[in-house]
C-alpha cells in the first residue's frame, strides 16, 4: 500500500459516468478527482440532478464508472466484479439512506444484525443490541419497521450502519424524510457515532447547514466538481 493510500481511504481519479439514453449518451459525471482521508467527514452537495447520488453509488461500489479509478481502502474498485465489491462493502462500508431501507419482515434488532449475518459473522446480537441502546431504541428492539415512526426507523438504520464497525459510512440525505426535530436528532447521532468509531463519513445532502457540519465540502454541478474545500489534497504525491 502506498503512502497516499495509507493516508487516504478513498482516492478518486478522473472519474466519469456516461449513460445511454434514447437521445444519445448522457454524461452524469465528468473527469472528477479527489481524495478522502481516514476519519474525515465529507459532504457532497449540489442541486438536484447534479450527479451527487451517482458519485455516492460509484464510491460505494454500487455502480461502476465509465472511466477513471476509485481506490477504496487500498482496493481498486474498478478492477473488482460485483461479488468482490459486495464482499468489500460487507467488510468495510456502512450505509444510511433517505428512505431508511429497512427489511419490513425483520424486527429492529434483526435489521441491525442483518449486515453481520450477510457477512457470515457469528452472533452479532450483543453488538446490535448495544447500538440500538446507543440510538435510544433499546425498548423497541422487537418492533417491526411498520410499528416505528420515521425517526425511529432512521435510528435503526444508523445502528445497522455501524454494526460491522465499518471504516467508511455513506449517508444519502439521511434526514430528508424527517421533520426538523427528528432530523436534527439523526444528524447528531450520525456525527457522534462517526466520531466515536473513527469512521470516515461521506454524506450526500442538499442541506447547507448539515453540509457545514462536515470537515470538507465537495460540490458537484452538472456532473463536474466545482468546489473541493481541500482540493490541494488530491494533488499530493
Amino acid at each position: 500500500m502506498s503512502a497516499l493510500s495509507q493516508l487516504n481511504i478513498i482516492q478518486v481519479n478522473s472519474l466519469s459516468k456516461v449513460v445511454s439514453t434514447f437521445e444519445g449518451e448522457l454524461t452524469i459525471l465528468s473527469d472528477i478527482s479527489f481524495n478522502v482521508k481516514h476519519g474525515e467527514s465529507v459532504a457532497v452537495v449540489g442541486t438536484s440532478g447534479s450527479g451527487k447520488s451517482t458519485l455516492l453509488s460509484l464510491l460505494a461500489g454500487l455502480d461502476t464508472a465509465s472511466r477513471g479509478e476509485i481506490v477504496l481502502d487500498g482496493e481498486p474498485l474498478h478492477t473488482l466484479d460485483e461479488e468482490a465489491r459486495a464482499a468489500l462493502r460487507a467488510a468495510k462500508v456502512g450505509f444510511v439512506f433517505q428512505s431508511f431501507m429497512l427489511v419490513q419482515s425483520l424486527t429492529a434488532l434483526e435489521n441491525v444484525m442483518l449486515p453481520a449475518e450477510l457477512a457470515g459473522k457469528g452472533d452479532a446480537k450483543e453488538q446490535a443490541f448495544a447500538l440500538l441502546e446507543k440510538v435510544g431504541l433499546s425498548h423497541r428492539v422487537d418492533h417491526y419497521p411498520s410499528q416505528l415512526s420515521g425517526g425511529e426507523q432512521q435510528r435503526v438504520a444508523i445502528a445497522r450502519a455501524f454494526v460491522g464497525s465499518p471504516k467508511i459510512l455513506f449517508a444519502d440525505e439521511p434526514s430528508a424524510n424527517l421533520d426538523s426535530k427528528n432530523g436534527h436528532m439523526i444528524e447528531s447521532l450520525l456525527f457522534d457515532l462517526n466520531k466515536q468509531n473513527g469512521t470516515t463519513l461521506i454524506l450526500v445532502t442538499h442541506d447547507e447547514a448539515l453540509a457545514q457540519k462536515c470537515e470538507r465540502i465537495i460540490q458537484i454541478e452538472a456532473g463536474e466538481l466545482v468546489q473541493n474545500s481541500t482540493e490541494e489534497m488530491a494533488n499530493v504525491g
Partner: protein
Amino acid sequence: MWAKLALKLFSREFRRGELTVISAAIALAVLTVLTLSMVTERIAQSIAQKSSAFIAADRVLASNHAIDTAFITQAEQQNLKTAQMLYFDTMLFANDEMQFSSVKAASNSYPLKGELKVKSALDAQTEVAPGAPSPGNVWLSESVFYSLNINVGDQVELGAALFNVEKVIVEEPDAPFNVFSSSRRVLINIDDLAKTEVIQPGSRVFYRQLYAGDEADINSFYDWLKPQLKENQNWYGVKDRQSPISNSLNRAESFLLLAGLLGIILAAVAIAVSAKRYCERQYDPVAMMKTLGGSRDMIRKIYLTHLLMVCAMSVIVGLAIGYGLQEIATSYLAKSMGTELPMAGFKPWLVAISTGVICAVMFSIKPLLDLFDIPPLRVLRRNLGDRLAVSKIHIGLSALTVFLLMWLFSNNIKITLILFASTLALILVLFLISKLIFGGGRKLGLKPGNSWSLAIASIQKRANVNAVQLISFSLAIKLLLFLIVLKNDIISDWQSQLPSDAPNAFLVNITENELEPVNEYLAQKGIQVSEFYPTIRGRVNAVNGEAVAREVSLQDNEKKDEEARSGIGRELNLTWLEEVPAQNDIIDGKWFADDAVAEASLEESMLERLDVKLGDTLTFLIGAQSFDAKITSVRKVNWATLKPNFFIILSPDVLSDFPATYISSVRIEPEQKRDFSQLLRTYPTLTAIDVDNFVKQIQSTIEQVSLAIGFVLAIVVLCGALVLISQVQASLGERMQEIVILRTLGAKGRLIKNATLYEFLLLGGLAGLVAAFFSDIALLIVQQQMFDLAGKLHPNIWFIGPVAGGLFVAGLGYFMIARTLKQNTQGLVRALA
C-alpha cells in the same frame, strides 16, 4: 448462516401475508387437480362398473353359433369370472294361452356385473336375485304374466319341458340396447335347455359368453383368444356399443376434463400473478442485502429456500384439503348414487404433486431470476429494476407451463392444443380491445370531484395494469360463463332426449295388415305412439361386386388398424323411407330424390365399419334374393333418443315389394299397462320390448353425472375468484398510494370509496361483456365439435356476463381493499413506507 436467515425471513414473510396468495394459488391448483382427478376417476370407475352392468359383464363374446367352452375354461384359469347365456325366440304356453317370447337361458353365475332384480309375486317387494333360476324354474317379466293370465306358482310350457313359474323379473342389468335383439323375457337355467328340445339345427339362437375381472387379466385373456376368434364371433365391451348411455358418459367425461383444464388455467394465472408480485415486493430487500454485502449466491440460496418451502407447504396443504374435499364430494355422490365409489389409484396424487411443483417452479423461476439480478443501486435509484417487471420470457415460460400442465392433466394433445390456441387468441384479442378502450378513453374530458370521474380517470391512468386485469377478469368470467352455460346445455340436452314422456317400449313385428287396427287401438286407448317404420332383415355380402370376409373383433382401437369390415355378412335391419328420419342429419351426399333408383343411405359409423365410401355399390341379400344399391348419402344419427334408428336405409323402390314388418315406439303409462297387454293378446305375433328400466337407469346416471359436473364447476369458480383476488392484490400498493394522495389533498372518504367501487364495477362489467362475447363464440364451437350438440347462441349471457362480472369484481375488489379504505392517512403512509 444463510439457512437461518432464510428461515427467519420466510416465517416473517409468511406471517405478514406476503406469501398467502401464492401459497393459496399453488394449494388451489393442487387441490383442484387432486379433487378433480380423484372424483372423476372414482366416478368414472363407478360408472364404468355400472356401465359394465349394462352388458352384465366387462366383456362379451357374441356369436350366432355355439361358442367353444374351452374359452371359458381358459378364462377361469386366467382369473376371470365367466358366465354363459343364449337367447332365442319361441312360443310360451299356459292355460291355453300362448305368447311369443324371448328366452334367455343363463348359467348360475349370471349376471357377472349389475343386479338382476326380481319379485316373489306380482305385488311383492323387489329383491336382488343371487343368480339365474335354479333348474326347473322359470322367471318371467311382468307383461308375460298379464299376456298368459298366470301367477307365480303356475306352470308354463316351453318346448318339450314344463317349468314352475317362480319369480317376476323386475330389472335385468343387460336390458336390451338393441330393440331387435330381445322380446318379452323368459329366464331359465342353461342346464334346462336340452330338455326343452327347442334348439334344432337351423334355429335362430344368439350365444353369449360373459367375462369379468381386472382389465389386465381381460387384456391378457383377449391376447390368447384373439387368434382363435371366428368370423361369426364378436368381442366387445360396454364402450364399443352404440348406446345413449355411452354417448352420455363420453360427454360427461369430456366436460369434466374440460372443466379441470379450465380450472388449471385459472389457478395458473393466479400463481403467475402472485409469484410475480411477491418477487417484485422483494426487490428492495434484495437490493438492500446486496448493498450490505450479501452475495448473489447467498441471496439465491435464501429465495430458492423460500420457493422450496412455499412449494412443499402449499402442496401438502393442497393435498390435505383436496383429499378432504373429494372425500366429502364422493361420499355425497355415493349417497345420491346409492353405491360405494371405488378408491382412486396413485395417479391423481402424482398428477397433483407434479402440478404443484411445476406451478411453483415454472411460474416463479423467471421472477426469481429477475430478483437475483436486482442491482444494489436500487437503494438509491428506486425505480431501477422495475423494467424487469414486464418480461416476455416470464410470459413465455408461463404459457409453456400452462400448456404442459394441460397436457399432463388431459393426456390428450388435441384437446390441449385446441384449448391452448383458443385461449392465446382470446388473450391477444382482449389485449387489443383493452388497448383500444383504455387508450381511447384518455381523450375524454372528465370533471374532477365526482366518484365516476375519479373511477374513469383511475382506469385510464393504469391503462397497462388494467389491460392485464381486464384480460384476467375476462378470462376468468369467460371460463365460468362457458362452463355454466355448457353444463346447462348438456343437461338440458340429455333431458330433452329423455323427457318424462319418452317412449318406454318398442312395438315390433307388426304386419302390414295389423298396422291400421293397431294404430287405431293405441289412439283409442290414448297410448302415445311414434312413427311406424318398415323393417326387413338382410345382409350386405359384397362391396362393388367383390365379396368380402369380415373381421371379428370390436376391441378398442382395433377397427381402423385392421380395417375391419365388421358389418359384412351380419344380418341387419333394413328399412326404406321417403323422408329423412327426425333424429338423423345428412352429413354427406344427398337424400333420395323422388325418382331415386337403388340407393342407400348409411349411418356414419357403418360407413367406417364396412370400409366403404359415398358412391360405392353394396350388394344386399334378403332371403334368396339379392340386389345392388349405391351409397348416395351418409347420416349422423342421434342414438340417445329412444326411437327406432337404422344403420342402413334404402330408397323405397328396392324394398317396397319385399314383405316387411313394422316397428314403432310407444309410451305406456302405468294405468295403460292392462290395455296394452290386451293389444298383445289380440295380436299374438306382435312383440313389445319394455325399456322402462333402461330409461330409468339412464335418467339416474344423468342425474349423478350432473351432480359431479356441478361440483367441478364450484371448484372452478373458486379458482376464478382466486385469479381476481391475486389481480386486486397486485394493484393494492398503487391503490394505497393513490388513496394517500387523495386523502392528503382532502378527498372525502365516501368519494374514494365510491370511486374504487365504480372502478371495479366498470372493469368487471367490461370484462363480463367481453367474456360473454367470447364464451358464446367458444360455446358455439365446442358444443358442435366436442359435445355433438346443436350449436346455438345464448342471448341471456350477454346480460348476465356484464352484470354478474361487474357485481362479482366490484364486490370482491371492494372487500379486498375495504381494510385499506378504513385506515387513516397516517396509517397508510406508514404501511406504504
